[in-house]
């Protein structure tokens, strides 16, 4: 298998008396398509928050591209190529779509020619005709695409897509899936956090399952689909 990109080692996170993550470990390789699933409240977003630097884990270590980034601020992780999207899109409301992309292009990717690069990305995500609109004027799917485009503009090596398809129609899910496949084909490793099983199963090469803050299973989509513990976690039997 190709080189190890991200190593999450026994990460634990508590909120007061609530144990959100208990010694969760994950390994993600360069260029991999990885699915992260689990019932609501199982700790998926908390894990992404710990990996991206929005939260500090209480215990455990996180290594990315061979560096221990456990104590790094989020913007330095992003600059190293570890980029995430937010479950609920968080566009910069006062800026146009184009200006939204300029922020990561300038601050994370260090592009001298941010303008041309932004247009290229908008073309790729079929947002070019909306370049001069403000987020308030966008539809749900376009907001998701903007969230993705902004993350890609930061030039990720590993992209963590937190429920980018939630609430989208079946056709829109296929459109976002195609975009993610295309990004992966460019060499970007992708972690997909998703509830839409059809999408996760089709997309992922490997899947990890979280339940109540514990990693209960990991394997290929086929292995996960037939796993007893996973079935129990989802159906509560």
């Amino acid at each position: 298998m190709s080189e190890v990109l991200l190593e999450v080692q026994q990460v634990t996170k508590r909120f007061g008396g609530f144990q959100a993550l208990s010694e969760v470990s994950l390994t993600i390789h360069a260029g991999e398509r990885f699915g992260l699933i689990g019932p609501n409240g199982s700790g998926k977003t908390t894990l992404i928050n710990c990996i991206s630097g929005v939260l500090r884990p209480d215990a455990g270590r996180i290594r990315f591209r061979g560096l221990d980034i456990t104590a790094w601020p989020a913007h330095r992780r992003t600059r190293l190529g570890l980029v995430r999207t937010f479950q609920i899109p968080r566009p910069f409301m006062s800026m146009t779509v184009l200006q939204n992309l300029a922020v990561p292009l300038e601050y994370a990717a260090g592009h001298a020619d941010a303008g041309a690069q932004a247009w290229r990305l908008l073309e790729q995500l079929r947002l070019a005709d909306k370049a001069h609109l403000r987020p308030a004027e966008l539809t749900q799917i376009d907001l998701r695409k903007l969230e993705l485009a902004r993350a890609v503009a930061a030039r990720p090596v590993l992209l963590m897509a937190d429920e980018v398809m939630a609430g989208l129609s079946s056709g829109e899910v296929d459109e976002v899936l195609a975009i993610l496949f295309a990004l992966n084909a460019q060499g970007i490793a992708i972690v997909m956090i998703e509830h839409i099983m059809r999408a996760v199963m089709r997309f992922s090469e490997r899947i990890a399952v979280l339940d109540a803050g514990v990693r209960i299973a990991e394997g290929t989509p086929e292995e996960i689909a037939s796993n007893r513990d996973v079935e129990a976690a989802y159906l509560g039997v």
Partner: protein
Amino acid sequence: MRVLRPLAAVVAAVLLAYLLTTVVHNRYYYFAAYVVLQYVVLATAWNILGGYTGYVNFGTAAFFALGAYTAVVLLKTWKAALLVMVVAGGAVAGLLGLGIGYLTLRLKGVYFSIATLALAVVLQTLIMNWDYVGGATGYYAIRPRTVPLFDDYVAFLFVVMVLLAALSLSVAWAIEHSRLGRGLAAIRDNEEAAECLGVPTLRLKLLATTLSGALMGMAGAPFPYFITYIEPASAFNLDYAVNSLAMPMIGGTASWLGPLVGAVLLGTAQQVATVTISSELNLLIVGVVLVAFVILAPEGLLGLVRRRQQRRPA
């Protein structure tokens, strides 16, 4: 050249102001203009943090007074030159700005604003009990008898304030047209998203609070010479906090022009009201105008103009 344009504007403004002092000799105009220009500096400085970055500072008076009292210390101890006082006042207030920058790590929104207001109260209490700078009774600052090139010291102070106002506006203009300005706007719109997209939010916020504080301190440094008798109640006056917030809101917080427009309009209205009606009316005017703007034109005068232009078919 992008750097040369604001620099040329600063030099031109100061030269024009100087020429004016050789023509107009009524001192009252310089007193009034000084106050308005002082508000141009304060409003512009406030807007760097409040308008661009989205952190509302209620403690303008603390930074202004810190600049003024730094000047008092320098004056009393070394009889320092005005330029030294302005630079030192800016430096000390800038340090305080850096301090409140670290507050933004834990305090956001209205909690940050309350903390800055508390800061002004604490600082005022400290100064009131510091006898060296006059304590609660105040301090008489004796102006130098003459100043080269000028017949009158107030005219000189007016030109100094023109310089500071032009300088502040150039700083704001430069921020707006730079990567820094776009980073600050990202913080204002969504701080967490900005951080996750590579913006070093803490460093940028510290830059904004330091710059904003330093400019406010510079505006306060000539104050002892202007007023000649300085005491805590006037240096820490609530007017400074209220005006420097209201002026950008009225002009428009999105651009460097907004605080300038707001300060000139509101500041002039206050000066006129002080002479023709009563000096007590000032805050009432601000209050009424501010409420009217928040309801009718939340994006300020500039936003109103922009919207009108957009509505007109191109």
